[in-house]
């Protein structure tokens, strides 16, 4: 049995757990805790170690989705979670400009772990206050080849689209590496 993994990362409350939950065939195995600090009391619970979702592809292949904890104080988990990943998704809450700088820092940190492709999901596009993906591209100083996708993590089709775009980028990178060799 071969297992491959993708990592879903991003700032606090970006929608990582929701994203995995929308496509995982098992209930997300989550290490959520009730939130104690007042500052972060925008929702009931937060991920403290990781989330874990699964998509079975066949008898011999399974895809695991790992969600990172959003809060800084758990970032010792990031390096461990990123080992051997096929690619990663950086989720941004498009309605919260106060998290954009943090998103950029997370993005840079994961970039430094591995040269695997990644996409940015401009999440919560269903909300009125959402900033446009193309504006986020500028703010996060994304390289032209990095895709930024409008996303609504509560919508399965939207999450599928983000994962597919990531897989297409991975395929492109593989083909490019092969092209370079021949």
């Amino acid at each position, binding site marked *: 049995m071969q297992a491959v993994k993708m990592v879903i990362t991003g700032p606090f409350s970006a929608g990582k757990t929701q994203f995995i939950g929308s496509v995982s065939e098992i209930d997300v195995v989550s290490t959520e805790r009730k939130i104690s600090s007042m500052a972060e009391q925008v929702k009931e619970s937060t991920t403290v170690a990781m989330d874990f979702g699964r*998509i079975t*592809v066949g008898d011999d292949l399974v895809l695991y989705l790992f969600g990172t904890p959003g809060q800084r104080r758990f970032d010792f988990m990031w390096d461990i979670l990123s080992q051997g990943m096929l690619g990663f998704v950086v989720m941004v809450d498009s309605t919260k400009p*106060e998290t954009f700088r943090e998103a950029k820092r997370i993005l840079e940190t994961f970039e430094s772990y591995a040269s695997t492709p990644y996409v940015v999901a401009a999440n919560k596009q269903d909300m009125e206050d*959402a900033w446009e993906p193309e504006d986020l591209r500028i703010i996060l*100083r994304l390289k032209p080849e990095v895709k930024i996708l409008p996303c609504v993590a509560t919508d399965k089709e939207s999450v599928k689209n983000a*994962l597919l775009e990531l897989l297409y980028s991975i*395929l492109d990178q593989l083909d490019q590496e*092969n092209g370079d060799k021949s």
Partner: protein
Amino acid sequence: MALKGNLRDFSTTQLLNLINLARKTGTLSIQTESESAQMSFREGKLIYAYMGNDNGKNHLAQILQTSGKLSPEQAQVIQSHAEGKSDKEIGHLLVTARRVTQNDIIQSVRQNVLDTVYKLFTWGEGVFRFDANRMPNSGYITIPIDLESVIMEGSRRLKEWEILQEELPDLDVALRFTDRPDARLRNINLTVEEWRVVSFVNPRNSIRQIAKANNLSDFEIRRIVYGMLQAGLVEFVNQPKPAPEKTESPARRKAPPEPSPAAKRSVVVRLIDRIRGL
């Protein structure tokens, strides 16, 4: 779609950088507890700015008085006759009557816009929103101003060490020019110090080395580089940071060898098929 927030989280400099690079058209309104301001843009150029609640009335006489082109008495007389007239009409009348030249008007309006915007750089807090396509009253005199120089000047006024520290945590990265540096640099007024920094921009020089060579403190070099980054003149050279020292963990040693590219490719293709079918 919305471009809303608070300057606490997303500064005036960052907003102007975004408007410049995205070549946006529309009006940015900022509201603090005691003050308000509006700035309008056309295709990424600043064309108008106003402090206070824009009531749509004319204010050319006031602007010309501030710039010293009209005495307070003259301005008052003009204002008393200008009821219902637009700035453009007043300007036209004044030029025809040879009270001021067209150039006086352009320079005064431009200075007024710049003074307004520079004040905004000192606001650390305030709710902002950008309305695409909302434009100032058509009777106003608008003059397109490049945002690059405005951003450079704004960053010269930055006093907050913390912001710079957050924006530029790492001084050991190098810089390079974005496209067409000559054309861009020609349009910007740079200080002597800034020019010296410009002359050192090169993928081989780290920001720290540039500071050392020019005897600039960490704060000074950060401020200059921040301005040049936000003005879109330079960008970081993307050199992957050396990966954090990894100790050979037992798990790592046991890790299977990388699959062949062909095998990896077939896995990815299978994943695509599976997710499409979800």
